[in-house]
């Protein structure tokens, strides 16, 4: 018997190295220590406190723009080396879980069929969900990149990523 939430949590989605600079440009690599006054994400000009949050953000952009873009073989792909269950803080876990739900909806996952599958088959389905999350994130990164090219000044404001959400509603 497979716990699908637990199974999804064990998976580590990949990203295209094509977007590595973008990710590093806007997100901090590690977690932020808010007590450390000398190095703050904001002070470093980073909008996201870690790579994972930017990844989740990009996936939602991919969802909102209905632009799932499967990872291509043209670029090397990598994971962050950490499964999704360990990406999150109390703040971001509900948003990640919501993303799983959204992906299941858009993938039109047959929940009843799932219950008729054996463990391996269920795990394969969850792998497809993970692939779809990757595709959304990839599409989201592509969108952000094109937005940067089109209007670099857009990203000068501290609320740019909030404004972007309004643009893609």
């Amino acid at each position, binding site marked *: 018997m497979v716990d699908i939430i637990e199974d999804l949590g064990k998976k580590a989605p990949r990203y295209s190295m094509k977007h590595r600079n973008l990710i590093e440009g806007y997100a901090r690599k590690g977690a932020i220590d808010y007590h450390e006054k000398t190095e703050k994400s904001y002070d470093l000009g980073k909008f996201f406190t870690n790579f994972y949050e930017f990844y989740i953000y990009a996936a939602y952009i991919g*969802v909102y723009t209905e632009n799932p873009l499967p990872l291509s073989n043209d670029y090397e792909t990598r994971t962050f080396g950490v499964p999704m269950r360990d990406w999150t803080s109390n703040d971001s876990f509900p948003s990640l879980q919501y993303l799983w739900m959204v992906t299941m909806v858009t993938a039109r996952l047959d929940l009843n069929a799932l219950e008729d599958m054996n463990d391996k088959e269920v795990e394969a389905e969850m792998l497809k969900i993970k692939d779809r999350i990757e595709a959304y994130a990839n599409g989201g990164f592509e969108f952000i990149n094109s937005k940067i090219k089109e209007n670099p000044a857009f990203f000068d404001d501290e609320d740019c990523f909030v404004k972007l959400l309004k643009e*893609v509603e």
Partner: protein
Amino acid sequence: MIIKSIAVQDFQCYSGPLDSNIFEFKPGLNVIIGDNGSGKSKLYDAFYWLLYDKVFNSSTRSFEPTSHVGINLASDKAKASAQIGEFVEVIVQLLLLDQSDKGSVPTEYLLTRSIRLEKIKETDDFSDPSCWKIDSLSITKVEMKDILNFKPMPESGSFDRIVKLLLPPDMEPYLWFQGEQVDSLIDFKNEDSLTKAIDVLSGINIFDNYIEIATKVAKQANESYNREEREKLRLNNSAKENLLEKEKLEKLIDKEKDNLILIIDNLETAEQRKEELLGKIEDAKELEKLKINLESAKGEINQAQSLLNDGRRNFNNNLFRKKWLLRNAGKFSVQFEQMQKKYDERREDIKIERKLELQQEEARKHKLPENVPNRQYLEEMLNEKKCYLCDRSFIVGDPAHTYLSNVLERTKKKKVSYTDFLKQDIKKNIQDLYSNAYTISNYAIPRVDESIQEELEKLDNLQATIENKKQAYSTIEEKLNHLLTTGSVSQEDAKNIVRSFRESDDSKDRFVQNKFETEARLKQYKERLSIINRELKSSFGGKMNPDTLEKKEILDDFLEIALSTRDLVYEEQIKLIEELANTHFYQMTRENTSVQGKIILEKRGKSHMPKNVDENGVELTSINDSNIILIKLATILAIVSAKGGTEHHPLITDAPTSKFSDNYTIGFCKTISEIFNQSIIISYDFYHNIMLRERLLKEIENLGSVIVIEPSQPENQRMNRIDLSTKISSLN
């Protein structure tokens, strides 16, 4: 004695022969005008070198003998153009006119000082001392003009004699000074400074000698009186005790008197200090207050900035914390709800279908074989080990018992669970996902836009707060700068002034208390001594040797007279200086439109401090820097005029008016032009200030020569000093 001219040859920036560097002066006010770096100070140095064989070293702020200055005395241009074996001769020459003997023809003297440098080696650096051989001593020469020609004066010491005629040594500091020396020349806080001036006028030091002698002899007379008195009382027992107590009391009185002098001295110092600070304390307190306000405003800005930074940093965290990220994702929750509903319905259907199938299967399994009694009888039969049909007994383990047991076991009803007919159960997972989605879509997502707006407003408000606080900071800073520019206190001094004022105030209170206590003790000791003295007198009938008594009384009086005469003369001279200083102060300030007032030199302890008061003695203003310099200059002029030096000696001063406004500068020039037969001032003030220069030329009646000096090269192009010479041009 007046100076007719000074000529210099190859002296520092004055390169060229004597006739190309000549300054001619007339009776009245002569002014040499020049920019910074034009050679004004070098001219002052040339005067000094000629008269005293020393040159002022600006880096050590002291006068150095010619031997220390060495080849630097000579102009670079002359040194650079000299060949090996050639000489550079530095010469300064002063032409004087002595008119002191009114009955006879005025006498002209020519004073010359020179020194020679011989070039002995050629190197790239002409300033290298090893290239030069310099005379060990400068040579002086005095010539006196007979009817037509100058002839050397053969008497030894005639050079010094003429210099002393020009500038008598006791008056020299007041006749010849630089602007920056004025402050220390007349230092009102320092008793010695005024005493020195008064000594020039009245020889006050002679009274100090009288006091010293009178103290010594009065002490001797008193000691012999006491000795005799003790001798007379030696055999009287009660007198003995009184004598012992008398000696003890006298010692105590001396000690307390010393204490009192010390306390009064300290009290005066504290009062004087407090008085000095009084004019500055308000500014200092205000400055301190503004500094604290400024610090506090800075702290508030930093705090608000820190809140703004935190707010900005946390702003994007709200994408997750406040679920802003999901603002467009509400519809998926609805879709998932439908999915879940379908799933649940389908799941129920499947459950029913499967259950039915199972029941049929169960029913099939549950059916007992033909001729077997029903389940209840079968269980009873197996329990009782007896067949109800054939009435035979069983033995556990025989074939019939085993068969019936198996039949019963096989057809037993099982409890059916969902997993019996489905491979997975994701119901809980789906419920969890839905529960999360429900909370977010119903509570977080509908508030997202409002929440974003609130956060943006919060940031805007913080930004506005910072702007306001910065504005407040600027206002305080402006006030602070204004106070620093116009007030009497610098930022560094303010704290010290406030502290010193408090300390002086505390010290003053403490010394007043000490003084009161000491005076009370002294009074007590004196009263007791007086009683003892009366008792002693009665014990020997007051029969002392008349000579001893007379000597004691006369010498006590002598001491008293010496002390009071000295005080009297000192105070008289102070009054004289005050009166003459007021005359000059009035002359110097008459151009000014503000109320002039009068200077009084108020006794403060041992010194005298100037105060500017109106005709009723009410203090007009606290005295600022330029007022104090003006008062000091008036005092210097008072000393010279009291001594009668204005007619016979020239005043030579460098930059005396650098701290003055135009009116004060003109006032000073007018005053010295009126009171001195001749004066020479060297000044920067008239160089760029053309209006002031025009006023000088128009308004000074007794004007001598006005000369402008300019370097041959502007200062910013003066990389190579070997072409440097000084251009001298007369304006009138």
